[in-house]
């Protein structure tokens, strides 16, 4: 009798886990990890080495995933909020990254395309790019919230024009920053062996966690996403809340732009962060969030972002042929998206319940 209760409990825990939104990205991570372990256990090897400046640095596939996944994870935060509140996605983030990166280069380099020393403090460049990116976020937000244009259509404007604007900011030149302190933001600071982008990403998570904990933003965004009319009747201002989410995404874009520039000291506006908007939307979807807005889970989206990076690194590691790469990626994505669909998850949960049922019957006899 006691064992019966136990198994029943176990079943319910299992189904509860499967029903949990965060289950899919975690499961995907575990599956990818197991797959890599079987193919080549050395995938998980982490070594401590030195970079060309003699600073200690950790390297290994896992470190690469966490490092290169930072940008997408940060974007996933903003994209989740935008999706939840406005029931649509911002497809201009790639172009906006090009703009904010160009602004940073412009402020740091002045008019000289290869300056010996920085023309402005790094923090100033970062703040200016934050302002610019938030302004573009506000532009998108205004179109969506005040003029009620569909998000994808509204952001299409910046998607089309953004890279040209980025080119115009630097007069079509590609300035290169060679300042060591600035480049440390993209690699490592002396004495700290973990890549700086990882810390920046963690900082972003902490900030958004605090915001979610101590403000009503989560509640407001969800209620606006679920039903705009009722939230207005309850005294919320849906337009303002949508607007705010776009500005937050703008801030995320500025941070990502900063990391991108710091990685190699320059960006090429025409290819930088190309198609990253699609990956960011995919991260939101992989996190089990409805792309139709409403309830959301930021940590699931962030994990979704790392799943995408894990997949990319795995495919590079496996030396998949260049022309076949997108096909492999597509197959994995299709499987993940189908698995994360609520209907399929219900079915899986039901399947586990069934599996347990005969076992229970067997044990009672």
């Amino acid at each position, binding site marked *: 009798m006691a064992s019966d209760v136990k198994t029943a409990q176990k079943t319910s825990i299992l189904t509860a886990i499967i029903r949990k939104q965060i289950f899919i990205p975690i499961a995907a991570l575990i599956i990818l990890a197991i797959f890599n372990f079987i193919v080549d256990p050395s995938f998980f090897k982490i070594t401590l080495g030195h*970079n060309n400046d003699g600073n200690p640095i950790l390297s290994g596939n896992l470190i*690469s995933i966490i490092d290169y996944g930072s940008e997408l994870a940060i974007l996933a935060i903003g994209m989740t909020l935008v999706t939840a509140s406005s029931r649509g996605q911002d497809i201009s983030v790639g172009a906006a990254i090009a703009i904010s990166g160009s602004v940073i280069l412009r402020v740091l380099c002045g008019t000289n395309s290869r300056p010996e020393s920085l023309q402005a403090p790094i923090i100033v460049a970062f703040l200016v790019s934050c302002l610019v990116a938030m302004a573009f976020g506000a532009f998108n937000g205004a179109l969506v919230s005040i003029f009620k*244009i569909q998000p994808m259509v509204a952001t299409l*404007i910046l998607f089309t024009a953004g890279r040209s604007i980025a*080119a115009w900011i630097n007069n079509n030149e590609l300035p290169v920053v060679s300042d060591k302190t600035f480049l440390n933001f993209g690699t490592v600071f002396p004495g700290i062996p973990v890549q700086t982008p990882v810390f920046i990403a963690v900082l972003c998570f902490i900030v958004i966690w605090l915001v979610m904990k101590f403000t009503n933003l989560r509640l407001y965004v969800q209620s606006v996403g679920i039903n705009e009319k009722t939230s207005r009747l309850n005294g919320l201002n849906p337009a303002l809340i949508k607007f705010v989410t776009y500005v937050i995404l703008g801030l995320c874009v500025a941070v990502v732009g900063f990391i991108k520039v710091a990685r*190699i000291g*320059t960006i090429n506006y025409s290819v930088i962060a190309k198609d990253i908007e699609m990956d960011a939307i995919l991260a939101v979807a992989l996190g089990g969030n409805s792309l139709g807005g409403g309830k959301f889970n930021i940590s699931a989206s962030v994990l979704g972002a790392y799943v995408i990076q894990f997949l990319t690194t795995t495919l590079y*590691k496996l030396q998949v042929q260049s022309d076949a790469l997108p096909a492999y990626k597509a197959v994995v994505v299709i499987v993940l998206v189908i698995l994360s669909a609520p209907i399929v998850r219900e079915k899986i949960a039901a399947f586990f319940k069934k599996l347990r049922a005969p076992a229970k019957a067997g044990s009672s006899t």
Partner: protein
Amino acid sequence: MKMKKILAMAASMILCGTMFAGCGSTSSSTDKTDTTQAPKTTSADTANDDDNKADDNSADDNKSDGLIKVGIINNDPNESGYRTANVNDLKATFTKENGFDASFTYSLKNEEQINAAQKFIQDEVDYLLLSAADTAGWDSVLKDAQAAGVRVILFDRTIDADESLYEASIVSDMAKEGEQAVDWLKSQDLKAYDIIHLQGVMGSAAQKGRSGALDDTAKELGWNIVAQQTAEWNAEKAQQIVQSVIDAGKSFNVIYAENDDMAMGAVAALDKANISHGVDKDVVVIGFDCNKWALKELKDGNWNYDGQCNPFQASYIKDIIDKLENGETLSQKTIIMDEKGFDAKTITDADVEQYGI
């Protein structure tokens, strides 16, 4: 409700309008509506600003002063550093001082380019210079040009049309660029060849040509390709790919990147892992396109070789026009440009200035 919608539409239009106005444009508000629709058109004398619009009518005004009328259809100068250099070269050559009355149109869309070509034919230009966005769809408009007596010269890109429809085509031979680089690599006589091959966007002409040369030679001489992956012309993707090879603990001594950006990304990954690169160092770095900053890296000995993709076609075009004006016939239709490759050991400051784009 309907009123509100119309109001919203109008307001967003104004917003878009101001956004474009923000791009340093000084054009009047009347032609702002076609900013988004029509391809960008500038006439030579106001050509110093990419976003500057001027009506084609200005070209009609100075028709009868003995200048050769040229209509130039090119891709968007913001597309890449290569295109910017290409556009600036054309602008510098086809000036009033040189006896030309040139109008420029920029678009990355084939149909917009075709519209522009039709407009140029109506304006009765003498020569139509064309760098097509797409290879297909040009037959009928080129036939119109022939009927109207407009002579067509293709530059930079070829099209799928009958050879009789154009006078000449000036192109880069991507395969030759690749062969030059591979020949240089062969001449280095390295003890072993373990190569990381960073490819451009798969299927592009530059990727095919530059990959083909390396693939053939590697097969022939038994060079070891450690990794062959597309980084899609993208520096950060290249960095990740090289990082993944380093993480896998594989050894390599050559990086063959099909453009400068990817070479730069690869070098960033090498720096991170404390692998030396450049002249007489552990890893040989090869890039393409000859960006100015890349040639400076060569000059500093951080890279080893950079192959040129020549954007300076204007002088070739001018030669052809001069010949045609003098009634000479051209010996060949397809003209392949001279393209250089620079070795870090022999490059000079003058080279950096002259050939850097």
